[in-house]
């Protein structure tokens, strides 16, 4: 097994290790924190494909997550569909939303997509709050059942954790297949030079649109998982701040990598729950860290873009390549 296969398998190994966590950790709250980290990681895998491989930024992925969460909640509570069907519907609705947004926006250059997704995200925030009959308005949507697969209800902290990280594992597999096969080569070509890629016969708009739809799909599924894990959805979760958090995780994690963004997603999620993870931490210190959390995200974006544009993954690869940059 050469180094290249090893590197390609690293994310899978990491997910496998992650799946063992509940056997070691018994604290339910800590397991829940890691479950949230997995939900964020699922969104970030999609964004990593979009940003790291196709060179596009989205400031609206919290909205796709919200679309998925509300769809799943509506289908399971109001329509009384089985959870799995609601889960599929959540992915479908988010992917469809992504398609509608992507086709026109991606004909244009990068900053238009960033602005279009920002506008879309703010519009959806507004819709989640105002469409009271469907979303429950500001009060949110309550009484969402636990996820279930047929007769098997998933409600213990450990099994929810496995469900979420299992989904992350599948997402990584899918993403890894996309990036290592023909679409991945097209994406990398795109990142290098759009004109060059186009000259070689790459359908650049098609590649970008498909990547965007896949990333929206993953965000939608993450939203459905969130709704099932928490049992409650409200508009305050799917805001611009959340979208920026996802982008921070993706940028810090690095381009052309899945392991980097996943690690960054876990690390930056843990910052939010620092008080639960370090038991001896004084309350004030924890609160200070939490009140500066968004500063950390913002500053991380700025510093990484200026000093390490390929992110953590880039730093790691450069170190292993003995300072040689590709």
């Amino acid at each position, binding site marked *: 097994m050469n180094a290249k296969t090893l590197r390609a398998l690293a994310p899978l190994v990491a997910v496998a290790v992650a799946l063992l966590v509940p056997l070691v950790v018994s604290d339910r709250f800590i397991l829940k924190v890691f479950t949230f980290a997995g939900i964020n990681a699922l969104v970030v895998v999609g964004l990593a494909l979009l940003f790291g491989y196709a060179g596009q930024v989205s400031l609206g992925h919290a909205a796709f997550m919200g679309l998925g969460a509300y769809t799943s909640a509506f289908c399971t509570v109001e329509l009384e569909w089985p959870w799995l069907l609601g889960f599929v519907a959540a992915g479908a609705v988010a992917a469809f939303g992504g398609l509608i947004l992507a086709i026109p926006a991606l004909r244009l250059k990068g900053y238009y997509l960033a*602005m279009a997704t920002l506008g879309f995200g703010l519009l959806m925030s507004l819709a989640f709050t105002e469409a009271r009959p469907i979303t429950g308005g500001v009060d949110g949507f309550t009484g969402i059942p636990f996820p279930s697969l047929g007769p098997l209800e998933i409600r213990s902290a450990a099994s929810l954790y496995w469900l979420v990280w299992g989904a992350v594992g599948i997402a990584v597999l899918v993403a890894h297949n996309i990036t290592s096969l023909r679409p991945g080569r097209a994406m990398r070509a795109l990142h290098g030079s759009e004109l060059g890629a186009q000259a070689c016969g790459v359908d650049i708009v098609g590649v970008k649109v498909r990547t965007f739809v896949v990333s929206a799909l993953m965000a939608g599924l993450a939203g459905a998982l969130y709704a099932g894990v928490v049992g409650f959805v409200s508009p305050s979760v799917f805001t611009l701040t959340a979208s920026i958090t996802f982008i921070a995780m993706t940028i810090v994690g690095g381009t052309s990598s899945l392991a980097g963004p996943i690690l960054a997603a876990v690390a930056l999620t843990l910052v939010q729950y620092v008080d639960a993870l370090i038991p001896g931490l004084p309350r004030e210190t924890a609160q200070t860290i939490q009140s500066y959390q968004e500063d950390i995200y913002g500053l991380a974006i700025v510093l990484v873009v200026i000093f390490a544009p390929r992110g953590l993954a880039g730093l790691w690869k450069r170190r292993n390549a003995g300072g040689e940059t590709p």
Partner: protein
Amino acid sequence: MSEFLQFLVAGLKNGSIYALIALGFTIVYTATGAINFAQGEFFMLGGMICVSFTELGLPLPVAAVAAIAATAAIGAAFELLAVRPIAGDNPLRIIMVTIGGAVVLRQLALHIFGPDERALAPFTEGASLKALGVAVELQTLWIWGLTALAVVLLAFVYRKTTFGRAMRATAIRRDAARLVGVNAGMMVTVAFALAAGLGALAGVAVAPLTQTAFGVGAIIGVKGFAAAILGGIGNPITAVAGGLMLGLLESFAAGYFDPVYKDGVALVVLLLVLFVAPQGLLVRAGRVKV
């Protein structure tokens, strides 16, 4: 009829604010080819800094000018610290830096000024003017006057001064401008300072009518961008026209339908224009750099 006129006044008032923000986007876009996602934060900073200066006891006119100058300085510092290191690079990187920078500026405002909404006293006390059944607040007249003054001054500087010519030369072609002795890097810094100053002017002028808070930057930024792209990005005149158009659309939608739609209008306009006519409605098609 008077209802229509009242909506018209409200639309032109908000439209002037959007026009100033849109001008800020235009100035940075022409200088760097990138969209400055922190533009709305300069609007927020202008209002918040001005309120704080008046609370420190400065008279309002002094506080207003000082707040605009301070925000312009922050804009220049923002360029020097965050944008300069990656200047001339892929505009996407500049965009990402401004996204992160916007978060940092907003959070700084939160830590310094606190989470509460702040209000500013009107520039001149007095009853609203009434004519043809329409009431016009004095502050609205201030907003119109200051916007007009800013646009005229900007046009004068850009067209008639050596400095303005250097700015335009840099916008057209950076390396060629450098060949004839223009300090192109300096021009980008000045562009950010100008854009920040215009944003701050809008923030200060509107603060007496709508309270301000640390979090108002994002939505006003998006609206300003919607205005800029509605007219056709990169052109100051269409930016102003786009701002006024957006303000009117919003005002009539909120007035004749439901106030709930007010924020939605700008967002829908933004998406529609991006999708249908990304070169803008007011410029000829085919000139767009896609």
